[in-house]
């Protein structure tokens, strides 16, 4: 899409971006390595120095298993240590290992309640030496998310808020406005077909619900491999899977 625009517009865009960032140093992006996805995101990947929200769709809003693996895959593709803050310790570490986050890379923080979880999240984001900070949180107010976003901008860290609610009915909370840079919803999809009976590589229905400077979109992708990389399903590689869903900005 961008290739069709005249060169002058790109320069203008860069200048607007520089103005928006208000003199803060740009910290770069982390590409997904999936062409369709990266092309859709405004800077060619997930921006660092920002907080991104990830939730599960439908029943997954309570378990957040796919959302956690999606976050693990992103964190695994950055070098360094990962801080993972939880209130409910039900994460199974061998699964993170299979998404590329080995036992030597994750430090778990088991907070007693939501406020102290957010405090730990913010403290981690302020530390410049971490690859990513993941927090499994139910409530994220506008004020809290703005604090987190500012902390991430200061240190250039990558914050991943895995939204996870006690009941599926509370997931409507995901429609509330927050200061996060992007917002994702991950739902499990039927796995890749195999020529023999069995379960193939897991697939996710990945929805980009909100993103600064890009429109909402959804993709069907193959889940993280052992290095945390997503992939385009084989039968879709030949054609673009990105479908524009212009009107759907707010989450239902």
């Amino acid at each position: 899409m961008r290739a069709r625009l005249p060169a002058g517009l790109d320069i203008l865009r860069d200048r607007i971006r520089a103005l928006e960032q208000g003199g803060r140093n740009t910290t770069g992006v982390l590409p997904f390595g999936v062409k369709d996805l990266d092309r859709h995101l405004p800077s060619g990947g997930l921006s660092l120095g920002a907080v991104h929200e990830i939730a599960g769709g439908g029943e997954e809003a309570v378990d957040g298993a796919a959302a956690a693996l999606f976050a693990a895959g992103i964190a695994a593709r950055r070098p360094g240590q990962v801080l993972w803050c939880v209130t409910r310790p039900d994460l199974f570490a061998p699964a993170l290992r299979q998404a590329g986050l080995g036992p030597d890379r994750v430090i778990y923080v088991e907070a007693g309640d939501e406020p102290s979880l957010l405090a730990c999240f913010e403290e981690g984001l302020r530390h410049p030496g971490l690859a990513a900070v993941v927090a499994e949180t139910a409530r994220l107010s506008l004020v809290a998310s703005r604090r987190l976003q500012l902390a991430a901008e200061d240190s250039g860290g990558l914050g991943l808020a895995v939204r996870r609610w006690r009941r599926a009915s509370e997931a409507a909370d995901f429609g509330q406005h927050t200061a996060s840079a992007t917002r994702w919803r991950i739902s499990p999809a039927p796995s890749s077909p195999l020529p023999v009976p069995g379960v193939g590589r897991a697939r996710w229905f990945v929805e980009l619900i909100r993103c600064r400077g890009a429109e909402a979109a959804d993709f069907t992708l193959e889940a993280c491999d052992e290095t945390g990389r997503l992939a385009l399903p084989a039968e879709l590689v030949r054609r673009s899977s990105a479908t524009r869903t212009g009107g759907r900005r707010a989450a239902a």
Partner: protein
Amino acid sequence: MLAANTAALAQGARVGMAATQAQALIPGLDVRVADPAGDEAALGRLAVWAMRRYAPVCQPDPPDGLAIDATGAAHLQGGEAAMLADMILRLKEEGIEADAAIGPTYGSAHAVVRFRRAHRMIAPDAVDAAIAGLPLAALRLPEALIAHLHRMGFDRIADVAHRPRAPLTLRFGHDLGRRIDQAYGRVDEPLVPVEAPEIPTVSRVFGEPIGAPETLERHVTALASELCAALEILSLGARRLDWLCVRVDNRVEAQRVGLARPTRDAARLSRLLTDRIEKIDPGFGIERMTLSAVQAEPLDWRWGKSALGETEGPDLSDLVDMLSNRIGAQRLYRLVPVESDVPERSVGKAPPLSVAPVLDWTPDWPRPARLLKRPEPVETMALLPDNPPTHFTWRGVRRRVVRADGPERIFGEWRRRDAEVWAVRDYFQVEDEVGRRFWLFRAGDGEDGRTGSQAWFIHGLFG
């Protein structure tokens, strides 16, 4: 006879017996001459040990007790219950039979530990329930007074605690009322912290009491750099810091801060200390402030990575210190592989800054992202012996299985428990119509009744 150990008591020896009588009763009894001065010195040493290990404010309570003010320190030991258990176990390892209780006041803890074997933890609002039924001797009163009270028909604390105070005071003196109030927390009972001269300590005395958080911050920062200078002379780094604030009403507000590695960096120490200012209640003002490195160790200098291509990861120990002082050291960990095939046993906790584990989980079999705390039973329909279920019902929702993988057979660990000699679990990964993937297992191999109940359970959710 002044004291006897459990073995002697079991054989019939009693405190207060003549030594010769006890010797006649128990052949080969080991009798030692009482040494009150030596006992007191040993109790003082024990108090210093407890101060180093558990809490900043410890006071020997002769003849046989130790008073510890655990406020602001229990978080480093994983909570109050864990601290008590650790205390009893460690003393036992040293050959000291001890019992411990924790309560909102020293008086109530003192009473409960000596006169009641159960209920070691007294909730802040349950002092009355904990001590009302105890005999009057639990109140730390002189023997003559207790005898006097007995003659008047008072046997238990409840008999005197809820009575009008004036007639009691007139008849029995002020001691009774004071001890009751101390046990119930109506009057303060400040402990005098034991001091050990070998611990590096710096302190400040204020002519005018201070209380504002900014002032506290300024002074504790100055104290931290003084302490670092003191540690530099000793060439040590701090592992545990005690910050004591003595208030004008003679109460001691104490905070303890732990560090993952020995540190002599004033900026880092003061950052950890200022994070705890909000926990300090200055009351009418603080007149003396003390900072001591209760636990100090040589700094562990390490060689920097010098070879080309090797880069040293950023230092996370400051973040780890910050978080573990805030939420507790036990709540910050790594999950590392443990040599076990049983899924719930294959993960163990390790300290956050430990070195990389040698073992690894087998990457071949799929593992779920969420593991249920305990397997939940599901209703299924499956062909025996090794077919996956065709559908299952979990938490009231019936799901049709479209695809499945398995079985992955996991055997019980006979070396751990006798009950697991024959136990078998057959794990299946199943997928429903919408693509949600679940981890089910059958307890048993589907043929032999000894291997399990053949019932189905769900154990985890894949992403």
